[in-house]
């Protein structure tokens, strides 16, 4: 199986997983227990927290709170950050942010959605025009999960704060974390990340928070995670996350260059076939390459490809129960293009030759399906 659906989830990092599993098996105590074993597990978690935080931010300025995943981190950010006035986001957000914004309406906060450009990126001017003195919260995705477009969140956060210094700025960094080199820009207050997109386990994520930013708790209970997110810690998930991240960040520059090469060659091959239109921008994240085969349904192509040993995505897996991708629709494409969207997403594990083979299979399969439907 050539696996090109890494933006949906990655295969767990075997080394990280076995190390975490061994520790979690051996040190099974409740991290809140007041005896030696409990303290030991507590320390393992704190070490994991430091490792993860250090990979994208300085511990002087930021804190990290573990969550059950990217969705919970986004929900926590939106519902704890946007509590009055209005809140601004883009039409290109992942559902975890987008649907939370829609739900804000019922909580007395006016959600505002800025349109996106053709490539899925946010138009800073359009976004800023929605920010006013009553805006309390702004959220912009770092890497668009469906097109791979990168938003300059540092500059955006800066501009938002110049207009309204009291605004809290959040970014969903799920598709950027462990993939794009660099630290969280200083004006960003909240940043969501997920474990299973970089070799960790499903069910683990984190919300990174600028120090001093007061957020109300999201889950109430035993007071874990500094009282912000109660519930016994997911020790196995947290440890696996930190070890997987450590390995990813250790090779982040080299991986980026290599995956960029793979993405460019795949893009060129698919474009040259005349069967696919590439929707992802040239300067986006190399990990995501979204294309459209006009006139066929992406889902049908996806199943044919799977049977031929290539797994790809169609839009975001979280929203694939709906007929079209809301995000690609927001980019302004017509129905026949929306129908045929496929998302190829790479990982550092993707080999050069398997990507090339997949591109050939993609072209042949699309050609065959088009002929059948003509």
């Amino acid at each position, binding site marked *: 199986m050539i696996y090109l659906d890494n933006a949906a989830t990655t295969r767990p990092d075997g080394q990280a997983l076995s190390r975490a599993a061994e520790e979690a098996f051996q040190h099974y105590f409740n991290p809140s227990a007041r005896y030696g074993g409990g303290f030991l597990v507590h320390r393992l978690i704190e070490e994991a927290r430091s490792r993860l935080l250090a990979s994208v931010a300085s511990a002087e300025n930021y804190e990290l709170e573990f969550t059950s995943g990217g969705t919970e981190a986004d929900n926590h950010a939106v519902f704890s950050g946007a509590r009055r006035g209005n809140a601004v986001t883009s039409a290109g957000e992942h559902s975890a942010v987008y649907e939370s914004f829609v739900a804000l309406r019922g909580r007395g906060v006016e959600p505002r959605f800025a349109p996106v450009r053709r490539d899925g990126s946010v138009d800073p001017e359009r976004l800023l025009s929605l920010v006013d003195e009553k805006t309390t919260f702004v959220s912009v995705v770092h890497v668009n999960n469906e097109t791979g477009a990168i938003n300059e969140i540092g500059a955006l956060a800066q501009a938002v704060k110049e207009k309204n210094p009291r605004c809290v700025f959040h970014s969903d960094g799920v598709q950027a974390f462990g993939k794009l080199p660099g630290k969280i820009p200083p004006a960003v207050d909240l940043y969501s990340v997920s474990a299973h997109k970089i070799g960790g386990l499903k069910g683990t994520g984190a919300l990174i928070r600028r120090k001093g930013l007061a957020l109300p708790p999201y889950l109430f209970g035993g007071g874990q995670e500094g009282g912000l997110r109660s519930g016994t810690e997911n020790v196995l998930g947290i440890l696996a996350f930190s070890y997987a991240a450590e390995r990813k960040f250790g090779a982040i520059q080299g991986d980026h260059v290599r995956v960029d090469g793979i993405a460019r060659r795949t893009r060129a091959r698919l474009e040259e076939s005349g069967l696919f239109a590439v929707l992802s921008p040239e300067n986006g994240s190399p990990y995501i390459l979204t294309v459209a085969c006009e006139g066929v349904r992406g889902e049908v192509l996806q*199943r044919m490809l799977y049977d031929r040993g290539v797994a790809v995505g169609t839009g975001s897996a979280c929203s694939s129960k709906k007929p079209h991708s809301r995000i690609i629709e927001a980019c302004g494409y017509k129905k026949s293009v929306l129908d045929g969207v496929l998302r190829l997403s790479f990982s550092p594990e993707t080999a050069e030759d398997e990507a090339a083979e997949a591109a050939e299979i993609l072209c042949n399969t699309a050609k065959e399906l088009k002929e*059948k439907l003509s």
Partner: protein
Amino acid sequence: MEKVVIIRYAEIHLKGKNRGYFERVFAMNLERSLKGVRHELHRTSGRWLVAKFPEEQAEDVARRVSKVFGVHSYSLGYETGSTLEEIYEAVRLVAPKSGTFKVETHRGYKQYPLNSMEISAEIGARMLEDNPALTVDVHTPAHTVYVDVRQNGVALVFGSYGAGPGGMPVGTAGEGLLLISGGIDSPVAGYMMAKRGLVVELLHFHSYPYTNEGAKEKVVALSKILSAYTGVVRLTTVSVTHIQEEIHKKCAAELNVTLLRRFMFRIAERIAKARGLSCLVTGESLGQVASQTMEGLTSSNAVVTLPVLRPLIGFDKEEIIERAKKMGTYETSILPYEDCCTVFLPEFPATRPKLERIEREEGALDVEALIAESLATAETVRLD
């Protein structure tokens, strides 16, 4: 005294010399519905009794038998000795806490020293004495306590009747093949034919990769719900993908669905005949969609010789939905799925296709080869 489920049967009593056969099949179906629960099943005059089951499973036993066709009504109650003391002891367990009531006694054992009126009066008096919150109302009581005095010093006591599904025991009216799509209608059609005693096998057409595995899973889920009524169900799935592709390529678009349905009927008939099934069953309802017009039905019927039973033919959609809700398939049926008929759905399907034209269009296809190819994709699972 022992907890029992009392089962009364529906139409079987009308059967003259065949009654014994109907009763045997009915008993077999009751046994099958209770598979996995320790119990004993006895026949007493005109009733069946389920006894010796673990008391905590009483509700489950009642729920299971309530789905067996042929059951007219059932009651959860007690079997006890027939002295007044013993009867009253059981009555206390089913008696209401307050409100109006009456006692209704049936005395099958005519040698019993009291007649039915006297038994009712005696039991009723004891109830009033024990519980001042009760009052008697023999005309419109809120509760009725039933006492049934049988032969051999045995009495049955129960507090209510549950309605069974009625109908005839499954297996007493032959075997048929139901074309099941995943929508609302076909499970209801299967239910209705099983209710008349037909053993129903299931056939589902898919067009993977145009439809997804979810559609198949949904049909399995629906079949399992249906199997609670019909006993063991066999589900066969067949791919019609290539047939659809060929029709799409070679025939007039507006006849897509009509032509596909003719293939489905042919394939269904071959499977039915190979398995010794004597009819096809569909969920079609006259005029519901373009392919279910009189002309559409005629064009499908034209390619088969087995009778095609369409129990929903005169039903409105709302009536079908109501039945689907009642039998418990509705919630599953409305989950989103792709019907293979919608994949190549033309914008304007023909509603009055002429048989002559259909046959001419079909001439462009190698019908036999396509059917053989389709049949080769058949997979069968048992849903126990």
